């Protein structure tokens, strides 16, 4: 276990050193992120014109969801995107062989090798929005609600990671379908808005099939002190299942890996 922590530390410190070379990139990412956030909040405000509400959510509580989304998007840009979009390249160029030969778990190696520091401001800003908006909507913080919030964020992240990893792992068979992750990213944008704002069919899909509700809506409910315990419990089970499935799927996929040009 300790070996894994040490490996992560080494991975990310080299990532930091190499990214210092591209400081302009960092600035561009920062600008793009601020623009995106501003635009999303503007679009969100259009739903509230004329004193309307968005699926029983007030303006402030809907902002909490934007905050959670921004936070998860930051994590995606920092960890998921740089690592998981590489998998297809390893498969295509045959360099996955070298990864498999390393005396460390291959799924671990592929998932944490890189860390993009441009995602950090987004993570911090996302959390700030969550807490600011939660205070504005007069939620009373307690150790308990904070604890539930952290757990539900973890649930959301694990589900997000597992779904993304599943798609990335399928590139072992279908090198060409890796841009299914683009479809996933497009669908994830639905997480910017509360799940109760969608038509019933989509609510069902976004809770059970592609559980976007667990990514943003439920963590937001948690910090607002409104999350029901059985949903949290269900989330724990669902995220464990997703994670276990991603792991089994990876082992299964490796059995079919034939390496490039051999």
């Amino acid at each position: 276990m300790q070996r894994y922590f040490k490996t992560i530390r080494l991975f990310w410190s080299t990532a930091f050193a190499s990214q210092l070379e591209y400081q302009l990139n960092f600035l561009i990412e920062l600008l793009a992120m601020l623009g995106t956030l501003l635009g999303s909040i503007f679009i969100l405000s259009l739903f509230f014109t004329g004193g309307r509400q968005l699926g029983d959510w007030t303006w402030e509580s809907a902002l909490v969801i934007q905050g959670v989304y921004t936070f998860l998007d930051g994590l995606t840009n920092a960890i998921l995107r740089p690592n998981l979009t590489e998998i297809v390249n390893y498969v295509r160029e045959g360099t996955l062989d070298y990864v498999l030969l390393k005396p460390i778990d291959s799924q671990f190696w592929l998932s944490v090798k890189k860390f993009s520091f441009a995602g950090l401001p987004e993570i911090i800003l996302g959390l700030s929005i969550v807490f600011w908006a939660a205070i504005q909507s007069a939620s009373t913080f307690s150790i308990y609600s904070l604890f539930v919030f952290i757990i539900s964020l973890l649930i959301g992240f694990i589900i997000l990671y597992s779904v993304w990893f599943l798609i990335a792992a399928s590139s072992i068979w279908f090198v060409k379908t890796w841009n299914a992750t683009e479809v996933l990213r497009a669908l994830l944008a639905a997480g910017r808005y509360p799940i109760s704002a969608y038509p019933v069919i989509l609510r069902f899909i976004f809770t059970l099939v592609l559980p976007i509700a667990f990514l943003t809506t439920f963590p937001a409910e948690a910090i607002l002190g409104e999350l029901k315990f059985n949903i949290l419990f269900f989330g724990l089970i669902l995220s464990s299942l997703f994670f276990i499935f991603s792991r089994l799927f990876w082992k299964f996929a490796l059995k079919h890996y034939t390496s490039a040009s051999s």
Partner: protein
Amino acid sequence: MRIFGLSLKVFKTLLTTQYAYMLEYRIEIALWALSGVLPFIMFSLWSQNDVGNSFGLNDVGLARYFLSAFLVRQFSVVWVVFSFEEDSLTGRLSPYLLQPLHPLFRYVASHLAEQATRLPFAIAIAIIFFILNPSSFWLPSLPQLFLAYLSTHFAFTIAFLLQSLVAALCFWTEKSSALERLIFVPYLFLSGLLVPLSAFPSNVLKVAMLTPFPYLINFPAKILSGMPVDISNGFLAQILWISILVPSVNILWKLGVKRYTAMGA
């Protein structure tokens, strides 16, 4: 007649080879088509929450607008900066530069070929949309269809030129695709992909109309869906933007090629 080395014969050859090439990647292109679902997600939100009335659109109007926005996006999507960055980093650009043909035409041809490959998928998605929302079914009249087709092509031209401007920066920096995000973000919010621009407060709308973005989705989508729209002004603005962008791209490109050092050579 040749314009920057382009003759009708060259153009035809480029198109047919690129089309044959694109046909090999049908699944990939189907997935790209699917990844444009954002207008549908937004449609379900706007109609479910009855916001449409506040900007003068009932449910049928909203459905038609967002389906049109989806279709316009399908045929105006541009990725030239990514192909160009890869070609310039791997040195594949060098032989292209030697040919008596402006390299950008090669990318234009591959975009047009991809659009042709996309057509069946886009139609299939539209049919599914009509099955799910039968009340929104409509067939645009022929002149309407023609104008929408023309304005979508203009939208594609503007988007392509905008991205070529960024792509030309590849000659100065290795990572110009990162700069593309700075175009994509205002495009996302000001083009009308997420909401018809008539929903904007008037002061935001005024600023938005000064940018090229509303003419990329909002204008063609309005024509296609049969919403009231100032057609002559819209086309005038599109042509104006094209006539500003063509010389800009040309100048930046010429300056850039002088700096080209053929990476890896």
